[in-house]
């Protein structure tokens, strides 16, 4: 694997976006462009995943589901303990931040797919199921942690029950999750002839569209860099260490429990290491209005996402190679 094969266009565009932001360029993508590309990418990844799953044994997908639920529940608890125990972060902010780390970043996942594609590595069909599943439990655990935090703070538990139900519904009707699940179902249902007709749009041009998405994410991440001071050294450090902790569990589960190939292990690791910036932030804003959104957004978008895209993915891949004894 040469250096030039590491220069995946998607990642370079991410760097370009970040660079534009750092030199204070007036480069700006229309907000709707970003939304459109996200919709497109989610459908594309769903269709592709669904098609792959249709040809594989559905029973074999079960361990992936368990792993996803395990990450969704376990990682936020670990994050919460670190934030409270080592960082002395106040309970509600700790709960809000933790929830993000149980969830996943579809952008990071797709970058990893681009990375593997760039170096010609194949992977299993199951990680995409994990991508679709992991957002919901993380929101639930975030709410449980918030309830716990409020209890230890002795505060009122006003309307917790109603909120719980409200958020559970939201976690399952969330647009991104629905789009991903729906496209997976469609990808699995349609005939090969039909799929061929939509393949040029959803697969052939996918990697190029991903570049534009990542350029935009780079600008978004760059914007958040300026908030590092407000967020503090500990939290910025957490934004780099927590993905590594997640990655440790991810690589172990991927290799020993799921027993996937190098590509598959890399993807599972990326899922465990990444953290949400789509469904979880609005849910936490609603569930824990006392928490400061600039904390979790800066960590997620300004810290963990860039770390995973630029350093994490090649690192996790190297780790997966090492475990596989290559």
């Amino acid at each position, binding site marked *: 694997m040469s250096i030039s094969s590491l220069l995946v266009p998607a990642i370079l565009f991410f760097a370009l976006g970040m660079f534009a932001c750092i030199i204070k360029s007036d480069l700006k993508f229309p*907000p709707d462009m*970003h939304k459109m590309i996200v919709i497109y990418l989610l459908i594309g990844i769903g269709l592709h995943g669904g098609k792959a799953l249709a040809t594989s044994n559905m029973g074999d997908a079960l361990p992936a589901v368990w792993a996803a639920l395990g990450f969704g529940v376990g990682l936020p608890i670990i994050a919460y303990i670190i934030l409270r125990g080592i960082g002395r972060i106040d309970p509600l902010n700790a709960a809000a931040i933790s929830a993000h780390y149980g969830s996943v970043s579809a952008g990071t996942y797709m970058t990893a797919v681009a990375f593997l594609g760039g170096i010609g590595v194949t992977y299993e069909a199951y990680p995409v199921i994990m991508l679709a599943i992991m957002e919901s439990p993380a929101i639930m655990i975030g709410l449980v942690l918030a309830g716990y935090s409020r209890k230890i703070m002795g505060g009122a538990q006003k309307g917790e029950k109603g909120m719980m139900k409200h958020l559970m519904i939201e976690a399952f009707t969330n647009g991104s999750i629905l789009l991903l699940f729906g496209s997976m179902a469609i990808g699995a249902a349609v005939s090969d002839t039909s799929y061929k007709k939509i393949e040029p749009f959803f697969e052939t041009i996918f990697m190029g569209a991903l570049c534009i998405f990542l350029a935009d994410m780079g600008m*978004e991440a760059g914007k958040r860099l300026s908030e590092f001071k407000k967020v503090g050294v500990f939290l910025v450090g957490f934004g780099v260490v927590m993905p590594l902790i997640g990655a440790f569990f991810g690589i172990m589960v991927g290799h020993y429990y799921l027993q996937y190939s190098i590509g598959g292990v890399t993807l599972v690791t990326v899922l465990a290491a990444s953290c949400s*910036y*789509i469904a979880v*932030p*609005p849910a936490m*804003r609603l569930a824990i*209005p006392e928490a400061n*959104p600039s904390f979790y*957004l800066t960590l*997620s*978008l300004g810290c963990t996402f860039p770390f995973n895209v630029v350093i994490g993915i090649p690192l996790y891949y190297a780790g997966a190679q090492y475990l596989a004894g290559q």
Partner: protein
Amino acid sequence: MIMRPETLISMNRIEIVVDEESLSDLLELCREAGVRGYTVIKQAGGLGSRGERRPDDYALEEKNAVVILACEEKQAERIIMSLRPKLKEFGGMCLISDCQWVIGPAASY
């Protein structure tokens, strides 16, 4: 104002800011209170008791709507009275001030 009375009608101008999600409830209440005209501006942002709300934030889009409503004083009172119990829940703000309606367009107040 030196304009002649057949030109202007004394009225109240009500200006309400709420979350976009609460807008349809608010407008429903307005219509129930007999409001016959209002103007809505969406995609607004702001600062309030719940902190900043940014309609163009990347990951956390929070949008306000501004509702402007001109009506006669009596009607204004009725509206305010029927809105008040819900205003607490909606959050935001509700202002009322005096104004003159320039006669000309079809009366929709």
